[in-house]
Structures are given as structure tokens and as C-alpha cells.
């Protein structure tokens, strides 16, 4: 196997291959960075180009786009609070805060390097274990995915801010937003009031851009700053050094693990990045920094949303069934080149598959220099007067949401939720919690109802299946942890005080 892998790597080292990967990386990073253009869309846009290439080079190109888009989305998220892709929204909270503190370079650098580490790790896992993982992927069915979203709900308390009641209300609001549109199980329209524009519901990216970017820019417009802070180029564009990168290793590991698990389940990028954020906070030595500019708060979500991509490829390669939009495009490219994906893919076309693996490895490594060039460029672009920046971000937000589906409805959604987000934040309601609710809501309702159908209408299925039950118990433990901790310390102190009075048992 190792020699197959080496062979694959070598096959990518041709002029054509390297060009394809570099072009793909650049294209993917730009596409991912532009709000409204997602990774899968960037890949799809190149599909016609691949018709003229041989299959191996096409896959190398697509691998580049994939890796690039995974990183690209976090650039605007960190710099201007505008998520380039849905999975990069979780970087906004701490990433943008770091930018305000004049540490843009550090934030972007951590995002780049940790993201590549996460991507690299998940590909190692993918390559080593693709067949057994394929079987594992089958174990993650609707009940498990539902349990995962319940676990994801516990993250809301992390995002709530000072008032838990308001945080939960925001989260529920987000969940409710996903019910607008066609019901995915019955096909019936809900809350559409007869309007065709609402048939497909509110687009997640449009709402995110509204809540995060538009509301913030409206705030900036409405509250003119008394004085503009001086921009120190040296401080702001400095990249993180090795010591700083090493300091976030724990968050990076957590992000990788969360991303890999969520990726195999097929629950998607936004879910993995938010859960990774919360878990990194839970296990961090400095949890109080989260939300105020913690580098771990950037490392964890960025690593997660890269590493879930590799593991989302597992069912695609092992079984021929994709569990993510990007994986679907890789398979489509194979089909359009006359190759049938499926369980026999690795046997029949092993050189192709291993050259693809090689490309995935190499693009993750190449991403770092390419990424550094691009992020330096972007940092220069953002150094403009606040009036111009706010105006530019607003224009970009509406442009990007238009580009989503070439529909003005999405831009209108961004505006409406921008205003709602502004109001919410004025009253102390967290927009991040609402976004999380939206991310989870669609999956939660669908997988719950499917699980009930699989269980002939009874909730047994959640308790008889070990992974699902385990996740639910875990969620329960997490939620009751504060109470348990207090009870535990209460018991411990009582026992200690009892011990000093008399110790009959121990004698």
C-alpha cells in the first residue's frame, strides 16, 4: 500500500499535474473566499474544463479546488465577518475579534496551517482505512445523525453570551427558520404564504451573511467611531510563529477528531466547526478567552471543517455513494470520464485512486505557500478607511448572496436578517446561537422523522442503537455538568468535614 501511495504521489509530480493542482488551489481559494460561491460550486464550474483532460489530471485539478475552497472561506470570515462558505462561519467569533486586536496575520495564519494539518490528518486516515471506514460509515444512519445534532444543541450555551435564556431563544429561532419552505418528508409547503420565493426556504449562507456581516456593517454605519485606531502594518500582518502554532495543538487535535467523526456521519461542515469550537472551549486551559480573541477559537473550527472533507470522501470511495456535495462532484467527474464509482473502484482503478490521494496530500502541503500569498494580498486589501470598508462589505454581501442562486431573493434575505441581527444584538440575543440553530435544524427534524419511520413509529431506535444512545447520554451529561459539578463538590466537602469529626469505618 505504501508503495502504491508513493507511486500515486510521484504521478502527480508532472508539469501538467502540478499546474493542475496549483490552478485548482488558486481557483478554489478564490471561489471559497467569495461569499456566495461554495466549494462544490467552484468545483462544478470547472467540470466542463475537465472534459478535455485525462481523468488523472482532472482529479488533481479538482483536488486542488477542494483543498483551496476549504481554506478560502475563512479569509473573509476572519477579516470582514462575512463567511465565504457556510462552514467557515464558526471562525468569525474569535477570528474577527483577533483582527480587531490588530492580529489579523496571526488569525489567518493559524487558520491556514491548522486547517492544512486537519486536512492532512483526515486524508491519512482516509487512505489508510478507507475500506473499514466504509463499513463504519454505514453505522451512522439517521438515528446517529439526529443524536449528533442533539449533542450539537448543547453548544448553544457556549455561544449564548451572558443570558442563557436569550441564547436558547436565539437557538430556537434559528431552528424555526429552517421550517420555512417545503417539508422534506411530506413535500408540503410550510410558512410560504403562497410565495414562490419562499418555496426553497431561507438559504443558510444568506442568513449567515445577514446575521454576521450585514448586521455588523449596519452597526458600523450607524455608530460612527469617534476615532480610527492606527493600523500598524508590522503587527497586523505578522504570521504566527512556531511557538504560537504549537500552543494551539490541543484545539487542533480536537478539531481534527470532531471533523473526522462528523465527516464520516455526513452531517456537514457547519456542524463540525461549531461543535469543534465548543469542544475546544470545554477542554481549553483558557476558556475565558473564547469569544474575545482566542487563537484556539480559530484553530478548532478551521481544522474541523477541513478534516471533515477527507472523511466525507470515505463512503464515496468505498461504496460509491457520496455523503457530501464535494464528494458527489468527484464521483460525477469520474462518471463523466466513463469510470464507474463503487466498491470496485479501488481495485479496478487503483493507480487513479492513489494518484488522487497523492494529489490530496500534495495540495494540502502546497496550500500553505499558496495560502500565504493569498492571505497577504487580502490583508492589504482590507486596509482602507472604515467608511469604504463598511460600504464595500455591504456591497459584497449582497453581491455574494445574489451569486448563490442568481436570485435577488437571497440578497433580500441577507438584508432582512441583517436588520433582524442588528436588533437581536442590541437586545442581547446572540446571532451565533441563531446560526447554529439554523445549521442544526434542517438535519435534526429530517433525521428524527426518518428514524421514527425506521423504528415503525416508536422512539426505541434511539435507545437500542449504541452510538445514538451514547451520543444522547453524552449530550445529557454535558448539559447537566454544571449541576453535577456543584453537587459533586458539595458532597466532597461534606465528606471531608465529616471525616475530621470521626472516622468509624477506616478506624
Amino acid at each position, binding site marked *: 500500500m505504501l508503495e502504491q501511495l508513493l507511486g500515486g504521489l510521484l504521478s502527480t509530480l508532472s508539469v501538467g499535474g502540478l499546474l493542475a493542482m496549483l490552478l485548482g488551489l488558486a481557483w478554489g481559494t478564490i471561489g471559497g473566499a467569495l461569499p456566495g460561491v461554495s466549494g462544490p460550486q467552484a468545483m462544478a464550474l470547472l467540470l466542463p474544463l475537465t472534459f478535455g483532460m485525462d481523468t488523472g489530471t482532472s482529479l488533481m485539478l479538482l483536488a486542488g479546488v477542494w483543498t483551496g475552497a476549504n481554506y478560502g472561506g475563512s479569509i473573509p470570515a476572519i477579516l470582514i465577518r462575512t463567511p465565504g462558505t457556510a462552514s467557515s462561519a464558526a471562525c468569525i467569533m474569535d477570528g474577527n475579534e483577533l483582527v480587531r486586536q490588530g492580529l489579523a496575520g496571526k488569525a489567518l495564519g493559524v487558520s491556514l496551517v491548522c486547517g492544512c494539518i486537519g486536512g492532512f490528518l483526515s486524508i491519512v486516515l482516509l487512505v489508510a482505512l478507507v475500506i473499514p471506514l466504509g463499513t463504519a460509515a454505514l453505522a451512522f444512519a439517521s438515528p446517529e445523525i439526529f443524536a449528533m445534532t442533539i449533542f450539537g444543541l448543547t453548544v448553544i450555551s457556549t455561544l449564548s453570551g451572558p443570558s442563557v435564556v436569550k441564547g436558547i431563544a436565539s437557538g430556537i429561532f434559528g431552528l424555526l427558520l429552517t421550517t420555512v419552505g417545503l417539508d422534506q418528508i411530506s*413535500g408540503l409547503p410550510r410558512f410560504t404564504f403562497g410565495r414562490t420565493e419562499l418555496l*426553497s426556504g431561507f438559504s443558510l449562507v444568506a442568513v449567515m451573511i445577514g446575521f454576521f456581516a450585514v448586521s455588523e456593517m449596519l452597526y458600523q454605519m450607524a455608530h460612527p467611531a469617534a476615532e480610527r485606531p492606527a493600523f500598524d502594518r508590522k503587527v497586523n500582518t505578522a504570521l504566527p510563529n512556531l511557538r504560537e502554532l504549537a500552543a494551539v495543538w490541543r484545539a487542533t487535535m480536537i478539531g481534527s477528531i470532531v471533523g473526522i467523526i462528523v465527516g464520516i456521519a*455526513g452531517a456537514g461542515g457547519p456542524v463540525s466547526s461549531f461543535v469543534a469550537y465548543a469542544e475546544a472551549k470545554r477542554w481549553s486551559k483558557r476558556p475565558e478567552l473564547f469569544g474575545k480573541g482566542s487563537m484556539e477559537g480559530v484553530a478548532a473550527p478551521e481544522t474541523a471543517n477541513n478534516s471533515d472533507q477527507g472523511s466525507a470522501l470515505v463512503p464515496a470511495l468505498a461504496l460509491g455513494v457520496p455523503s457530501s456535495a464535494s464528494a458527489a462532484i*468527484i464521483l*460525477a467527474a469520474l*462518471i463523466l470520464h466513463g469510470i464507474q464509482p463503487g466498491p470496485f473502484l479501488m481495485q479496478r482503478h487503483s493507480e487513479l485512486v492513489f494518484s488522487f490521494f497523492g494529489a490530496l496530500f500534495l495540495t494540502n502541503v502546497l496550500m500553505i505557500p499558496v495560502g500565504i500569498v493569498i492571505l497577504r494580498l487580502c490583508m492589504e486589501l482590507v486596509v482602507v478607511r472604515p467608511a469604504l470598508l463598511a460600504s464595500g462589505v455591504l456591497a459584497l454581501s449582497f453581491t455574494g448572496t445574489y451569486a448563490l442562486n442568481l436570485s435577488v431573493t437571497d440578497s433580500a434575505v441577507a438584508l432582512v436578517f441583517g436588520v433582524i441581527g442588528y436588533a437581536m444584538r442590541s437586545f442581547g440575543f446572540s446571532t451565533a446561537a441563531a446560526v447554529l440553530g439554523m445549521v442544526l435544524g434542517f438535519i435534526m427534524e*429530517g433525521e428524527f422523522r426518518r428514524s421514527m419511520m425506521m423504528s415503525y413509529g416508536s422512539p426505541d431506535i434511539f435507545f437500542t442503537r449504541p452510538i445514538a444512545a451514547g451520543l444522547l447520554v453524552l449530550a445529557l451529561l454535558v448539559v447537566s455538568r454544571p449541576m453535577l459539578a456543584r453537587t459533586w463538590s458539595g458532597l466532597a466537602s461534606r465528606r471531608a468535614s465529616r471525616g475530621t469529626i470521626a472516622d468509624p469505618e477506616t478506624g
Partner: protein
Amino acid sequence: MRCHGHRWAYLVGPLLALSFLAGCQMLPGASKEAYPTRPVTLVVGFAPGGGADVFARALAEAAKTTLPQPIVVENRAGAGGTTSTAYVLERPADGYTILFGHAGSTILTPLISKSANLKWDAVEPVTRIHGEEEFLFLRPDSQWKTIDEVVKFAKENPGKFRVGGSAVGGVDSFVILALKKAAGIDVTYVPFDGGGPAALSFLGGNVDMLVGNVSENMANIEAKKMMPIAVASEKRSSIADVPTLKEKGWDVVLVQWRGIFAPKGTPPERVRTLSEGLQKALNTDSWKGFRTQSQSVDLFLGPADFRTFLAAEEGRFGPMIQELGL
């Protein structure tokens, strides 16, 4: 400090320049003889990588040699394909925007989601291209081996048999709905976000039977992880020799056909040009390769015949949808 009036003066300059630019040119002229002279956009109402998208791209590739200009695929997923219909309705009817449609997006989903204004008759049918047969699959290790055993079990155990397929409003779901009615059985249809997730869940043992096309599941059929046991066609399929539902006495004939549409009012000559160009594309090697690989059948119909076919299809499904109270 800048004074008030000074600020707004900045607006005047650029706006004047742009409007001058606009004013001194004429608007694009009406249709000329040659068509097409620039690329034609094919709007696909489903996500890239899915069955509809792959079909559209394969068709576009095949038509490269039969139409003077390339066809460019544009994805606008949402609401079972009806979002793309709504978009296309607002495009100029000049033949440069065309729409992908299948039974789900042009008939079933609009009727179920009460948006009949997005049905097939809101657009101009251009051609029907091909179709794929709808099969029913079982796992090799399941307790049933034939469709008769399945139906028998379902009759004796109402609500205890689970079938997986793509979203309600698509052809998959209608195969099962029609079967339920024709055979008088009560099975649970579990809809997924597409054939892929349905197949994954089926392979994992979470549903008992799968309904879908062969193209999406070819590899797993070959690997003997799933076996077709029946087909919803008029005659037995050449892909697998399994009984048709019709020969078993249940009138369930549903084909996953796919076709092309254009905004209403597109000039008939342009519709004809498209139709002929696409028909020729079906004879290219590129298309033949795709056809073999996807195990599909060419079902070409020109504009007039396609329209008749669509009316008949709606006639079949309309009452069924109403009866089922959808």
C-alpha cells in the same frame, strides 16, 4: 470637515457618466436569423454531482458537435427543481435559456407543493431525451427474495415494511405510492435527500427495500450488495430479468424520464433548432458512451409529442395525488 453639499456632489459625476454611456447606445435588437450565436444556458434545478446534473453535463458535452454554440450548465437547486422553473420563467424567451425537467420537477412536485403555476405547462416543452427505469431492490441477506413475498409480508404486517427512496414529489416516491394503491398494501416510505443517502441507509440495513435507478447503484449491484427484484416498466428490462409490476397485476408504470424545456414564448424556429440539435446529439459517440454507462434508454420526443406526453402524464398523476390527499 467636509460640508454637506460637497459630499453629494461626488455622486453626480460617476452617475452622469454611466447614464451617458447608457443613453448614447441603443438597446439590443430583436431576433435575427442565426441562432444560436452565443452559448445557451441550461438551468438545472438540482445540485451539482447528482443524477440530473450528470445527465445535463453529458448532454451538453454530446451537443458540442451538433449545435453551433456550447450549452453551459447552471445549477440552481431548490424545492425539488421548482426554483429553477421559477427562475427560467423570468428569463427572456430568446432561446438562450433552457431548463432541465423531469417528472418530479415538472409535474409531481408542483402539484404536491401547491405551486401549479410552476408546472410543465408554464414552460415550453422542447424535447424528451431519455429515461431510466425504476427498480425495486432488496439486500441479498434479507428474508424476502421476490416482490410477491414482499407484498405478502406487507399485507400481513401493515406499516412494518420500510422502503427508502428520494424525496417525496419525485418519481421514486410515486412508484411506491402507486404500488401501495394498486396492491392495497401499507408500507412506510422513508424519503431521503436523494438516491445516494437512500442507498447508504439501505445498505446499512435501516430500510428493507430501495427504489431507484440502476445508474446510481450499478457498482453495488455488481458487488452483489443489492439485487433488483422488480421494475416499474411496460416490458421487462434488458438490464435485469426481473418481473414488471404490471405483469404481476399492479398497474405501476413509471419511468424516470428527463427532458428540456424553454420559457414560454420562445420562438418556434429556435425551439425546433434546439430539438433537432439535441436529437442529433443522441447519435454521438459521447452520448452513446454515457448511455451505456448509465444503462438508460433514449426516449426522444419532439416538442409537439412531448407536450402530448406531458398532458397524459399529468392526467395519470393528477387524480392519484388528489386521492392520496396530497
